[in-house]
């Protein structure tokens, strides 16, 4: 009996001793090193960059959701005003008023959000470039990842000036020096020049929402147009050349009816026309959210009457901006003024930035919600990053600034004006006319801050805003970024 028991004991303990396998079961996830070694993984790495492009909460994405890049570049300008309402709504401790009046600091939430988003995107782009190169992928795909990375650096350099710069992920923070704006500019320029031609020339279809060759040249044109701001050196001829690539070879044209039903339907709806829109951000409320620009502008009952959910009663614009529209301008119809469904009537005039009436201010229909919706949290409007009208005005401006042919420049501007139902300009084209035309045409498309800085109007006094210091032409490096990397030098004045 005892013997049997002892033997059983030894066997039993042997069973238990065997139980020391401590490997973790991996079920729902993939180990990165394994995943990215597959072809599907390499493709996913490229696709993943585009996941960062669409807007979402916490300041992710180019545009669509709030408190990120779009708001930095819009609510700091004369074409978007989010006043505190008399009922206390949009008080938000003055964060929106600080944007409009240029009193932000390094701990401002949108600034940190955008910085973190851009560097996370760059990490993903670096990873994609590395993996695609290692996998000997189609050069067009490698080029696409590189152009995306250049685009993210372009936004960083545009916003912050001298920024940390790195192109390979496996480095420590001390190997990521804060690089002068001009050098970042040079990197973007050379990266675009050597890769843009490798990109596809196809539009729409499987390339909708992606960087093709024309979007690449549009970006290059923008870079040159603002070169003086970035580097102190004018590059007007290069801006014209890059724009010409798009104009002469891209096969784009203005959609004739873009503004014809503005106010009744969205100018930028579910799918943007390939004919005019060079680069779009795809948004679908259900599967690829989100866009809230349209919801944010409409007053509750107005949106309720139209769509069955309440609007946020937030973003509007000062009457000075509306007054720049000619009454014949079809683009003026994108502004809701006066009585609307739901018993709402918008006042054109905004009485105060601190205590505006509930329905003060014109509202914008550019992104009038299109389905599918997710309540009042997202619509499915796509967002235009670059479109043909912008390129026409870019070339016109560069021509004018480089004392080029007036008639060519005027014709370019008139193309845009004619579509809006306006007559040709005939006199001498002035920079101011281009500035206002850009405002009217491209309002709420994320270009205004850059334009105002280039035209020297950004820090000037305007309604509800005193003149602000030059330092506000750059955003401060986020306080958190400095605390985590004390070697970063804060932008002057902050």
């Amino acid at each position, binding site marked *: 009996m005892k013997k049997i028991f002892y033997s059983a004991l030894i066997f*039993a*303990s042997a069973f*238990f001793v065997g139980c*020391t*396998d*401590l490997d*973790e*079961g991996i*079920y*729902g*996830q*993939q*180990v*990165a090193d394994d995943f990215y070694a597959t072809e599907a*993984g390499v493709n996913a790495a490229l*696709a*993943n960059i*585009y*996941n960062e492009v*669409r807007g979402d909460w916490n300041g992710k994405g180019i545009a669509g959701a709030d408190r990120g890049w779009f708001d930095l570049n819009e609510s700091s300008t004369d074409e978007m005003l989010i006043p505190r309402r008399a*009922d*206390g*709504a949009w008080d*938000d*401790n003055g964060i929106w008023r600080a944007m409009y009046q240029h009193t932000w*600091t390094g701990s401002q*939430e949108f600034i940190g959000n955008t910085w973190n988003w851009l560097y*996370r995107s*760059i990490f*993903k782009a670096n990873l994609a470039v590395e993996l695609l190169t290692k996998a000997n992928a189609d050069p067009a795909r490698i080029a696409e990842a590189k152009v995306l990375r250049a685009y993210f650096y372009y936004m960083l350099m545009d916003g912050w000036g001298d920024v*940390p710069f*790195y192109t390979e*992920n496996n480095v*420590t*923070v001390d190997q*990521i020096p804060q690089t002068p704006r001009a050098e970042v500019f040079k990197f973007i320029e050379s990266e675009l020049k050597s890769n843009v031609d490798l990109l596809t020339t196809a539009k729409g279809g499987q*390339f909708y929402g992606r960087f093709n060759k024309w979007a690449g040249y549009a970006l290059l044109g923008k870079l040159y147009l603002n070169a003086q701001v970035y580097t102190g050196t004018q590059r007007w001829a290069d801006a014209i050349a890059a724009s010409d690539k798009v104009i002469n070879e891209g096969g784009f044209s203005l959609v004739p009816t873009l503004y014809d039903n503005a106010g009744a339907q969205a100018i930028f709806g579910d799918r943007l026309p390939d004919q005019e829109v060079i680069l779009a951000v*795809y948004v*679908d409320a*259900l*599967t*690829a959210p989100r866009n809230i620009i349209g919801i944010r502008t409409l007053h*509750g009952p107005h949106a*309720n*009457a*139209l*769509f*069955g*959910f*309440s609007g946020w009663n937030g973003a509007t614009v000062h009457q000075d901006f509306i007054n720049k529209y000619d009454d014949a301008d079809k683009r003026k119809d994108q502004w809701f003024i006066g009585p609307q469904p739901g018993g709402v009537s918008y006042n054109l005039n905004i009485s105060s930035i601190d205590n505006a009436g*509930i329905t003060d201010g014109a509202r914008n229909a550019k992104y009038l919600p299109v389905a*599918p919706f*997710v*309540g*009042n949290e997202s619509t499915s409007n796509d967002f235009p990053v670059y479109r043909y009208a912008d390129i026409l005005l870019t070339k016109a401006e560069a021509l004018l600034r480089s004392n080029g042919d007036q008639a060519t420049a005027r014709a370019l501007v008139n193309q845009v004006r004619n579509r809006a139902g306006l007559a040709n300009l005939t006199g001498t084209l002035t920079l101011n006319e281009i500035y206002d035309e850009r405002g009217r045409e491209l309002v709420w498309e994320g270009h205004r801050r850059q334009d105002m800085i280039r035209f020297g109007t950004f820090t000037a006094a305007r309604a509800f805003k005193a003149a602000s210091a030059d330092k506000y032409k750059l955003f401060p490096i986020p*306080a*958190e970024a400095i*605390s*985590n*990397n004390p070697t970063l030098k804060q932008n002057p004045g902050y």
Partner: protein
Amino acid sequence: MFKLLLKNLPPSHGPQGKRLFQKSSFLVVATVFLFLCSGLVQAQQRNVSGTVTGEGNSPLPGVTVVLKGTTNGTSTDAEGRYSLTVTDAQANGTLVFSYIGYLSKEVALAGQSTVNVNLASDAKALDEIIVVGYGTQNKRDVTGSVASLDEKDFNAGPITNPLQQINGRAAGVNINQVGSEPGQAPSIRIRGITSLIGGNDPLVVVDGIQGDLNLLKQIPPSEIASMEILKDASATAIYGSRGAAGVVLVTTKKGKIGETSIEYSGVASIETIAKNYDLLNASEYRAAATARGIENSYDFGGDTDWVDAITRRGYTTTHNLAVSGGTENFSYRTSLTGILQQGIIKKSNSENYIARFQGTQSAFKDKLALTFNLNTSLLTNDFNNGGRIGEAINRRPTDPIYVENPLNKDTGPYFIDPNGFNYLNPVARTNEIVDGDRTNNLFGSLRAEYTIFNGLTATGFGSWRKTDREYQNYISARTTQENARNLGVVPANLTGAERDLYIQNLPDGIATRELNSSDEKLFNFILNYKKDFGNHSIDVIGVNEWQQQVYNGFRASARGFTVDSENNLSTLQSSDPTLFQAGNITSYKSDRTLASFLGRVNYSFMDKYMLSASFRRDGSSVFGANNKWANFYSFSGAWRVSEEAFMSGLDVMNDLKFRVGYGETGNQQGLGPLNSVRLVNNDGTVFFGGSVIPNFSITQNENRDLRWEVKKMYNAGIDFGFFEGKLSGTLDGYYGLTSDLLFDYAVPQPPYPFGTIKANIGEIMNKGLEASLSYALIDKENVGVTLAGNVATTKTEVKELSGSLNGLPLETDYVVWASGGTTGVASTNNAISHLIIGQSLGTFYLFKHAGVDANGNQIIDDLNGDGIISDGNRENPDRYVAGQALPKFTWAFTPSARYKSFDLNMVLRGAHGHKIFNARRATMSALGSFGQTNMLKSALEDGINNLTYATDYWLEDGDFARLENLTLGYNVNTTKFGAIKNLRLSFTANNLFVITDYSGIDPELSTSGGSGFGVDYGIYPRTRSFALGINATF
């Protein structure tokens, strides 16, 4: 009898059914009594009875009385009385009286019908046997810090969780009940907070089965025989990487050899809200609005007390029926328990039904002991949490609840403010939501203990625990939740009435179902050798243990139904397919494995000198690849001075023992599976290549060195007893240091794609003193008064947060630990409490309030005098350290008294030295939102329009003293009741009063140490309850 009980249970679903149940519960009990009284009285042949007494002729309850050589036996009642039926043939047998701590006595019956005996105490065995890790020990030999509580120490009343019955009963064991939400267990912290994200919940071990605090929910409180709390590292190191936060050992009641016993205990309590917010009523609101010059467009002509409209009277009923018995080789105990709660917020309920069986079989001439345990329970919850109160107090009292012509027909009769942004009607939300879960729990274990030879035993133990939770949530348009109504799209060509009609006919409702299951297995194999060699005695164990936990589940959500009813939960497929969203279907699975080898040696010499050493080696799958195995150990010793010859002359001193110990334990609760590898996860979807495809993304900064936290702890203590044990107590002091502190440390972005990384860097120090005292003031036959209580001080300090990770210096300090909850304050200035190196964990670091200006804006004290108020949540010259969130000391006063058949027990407890940030008050005081929301009356005096910074204005003293429990008991003389052996009636009042300066509804907030603790964001109201209890034994 069971049938009868069940038949009397009315259907328990639906509010009406529940109400009925509460009212009729006493009726049920009475019926049961009647039935038992008439049914179980049997014809008797001969009766032997008597009284058993112990020292000082005091009656001894619970003494086992067995007729020698038979299974015929019983035990004594509370008065020491017993009664045994014997056949004529047995009339000349021998009765054996035995009781732990006393010498057994055999008395020949010799035909007597009355046998009274007096048992002499066994000096050596008088000590209690207490449960320690992987074994038991005489309390007198314990070298670590262990709080041992048994049934006589437990709080009475409407107990729904075992922790409630030891609240206030052990020094340094802080049991914290925040609000009175049904089904919500209190939290427990043993000796303060030792971890930031690593988890501070103790390990729970129930009869050898290991688990988390949820395991306690499956144990009927009235079926617990004793609870031991291992407090210091020398006691918990045997649990290695799971021992750092302390260990709660639970031993359940077992069957005894002898006559079958049937026990019933039941409690019914009525609960009301102890304190409400002092809000403006409709007329006060209108007057204040006029005074503030607010247009009356806010006024919808109502007069509503929103809190009153969503609350009701609460009820708690518990029933426990246990049957136990046993023969020479087999004993068992089985029980059925129902714990039923109706919360004071409407539609918040909890029902917990537990059935358990425990059997012990001895075999092979008592060499093999088999213990089998099976426990199954069904826990059902309806959720309406404290958030409902938050919604109700915010609503204007001038809003009506119902309207005749609703704005939107889908929302039913409920009022909605047409101008409101996401206006939610609290009554609609409370009444119409379907939100609840059902958890099926099952666990079982089998222990086989074989005595190989005298002193050496081998034990195999296996347990298996399964839980399956099913969650259901249906949000109809009638809840007035905006995102649940009118889903879908209106065709652009519709206008006017046609359009309105179309909108009204759009689909509504969101249905969600979720299943979570867990499966936890444990095997261990234990060799134990116990032997006395003259003056030496040793106790050695070696254990090999293996545990595996597997978690998996899935969730599906669907939106937009033609008929907006909760029946859609059973037909998710009837939702509008075009409304499917990314993330509507999810599933997961993960596991963790722990393999361990451990051992312990206890040695004692002449019962005077005790030494103990333990060692454990843990390997865990959740540790990083570079750190798979961890070692933990402890040493401790004790010196029983009172046994020394030189103390023999001191009669006043009965017992005096010094203890010291040191141990290292670990904590791996904070490590989830797969924290240490760089993973690619599904991360929503992306539009790429012309269509929406699944997106894969790196979702965390990886750290291959990730490991457990290490807690080193020193403990020294004294146990003493004076004046024949009249005065007894324990003093303990400890110092603990948690190093390799797990935290999500901030890393620079770039190059890291995410702002934080989980790593082991900082240190937390924890030290304190604990004292428990008990003094028997009067101890006579008919009257007794005992004064008892305990005090504990705790100091928890963040020692270090900075360090380096793979050469990267990480500067982490002034980490925001609680923020928000203050309407209007920007996220850049809303931080409330922080982790600051050198300060208490969760230190309030705030702007200083310096008054209110003419515009109603708060004036902030410019502390550094530079003329500007610096923005920012982190280190900031205009913020200052304003107090700590953790109490500096806690105490409980637990006196008891008895007079004849009456007894009185109470728990008065308190906490001191800490502050509470009243974010709820701040939010309810921002007059800038007047016209949109309701306000506290005090807001009008405060006169603050806008909150722009988190200031100390809302910081209040958190000190409190609460009469937690007051119980009056009466033991009914049952000599004439036939089958009823014992009958006890009791009345309990909970939370009779709170003494505090805190202005919120209850000062007891989470002191769990987790992010956000110490801030009153609003809680489920705390109740005051009055309960009647019955305990009966048949």
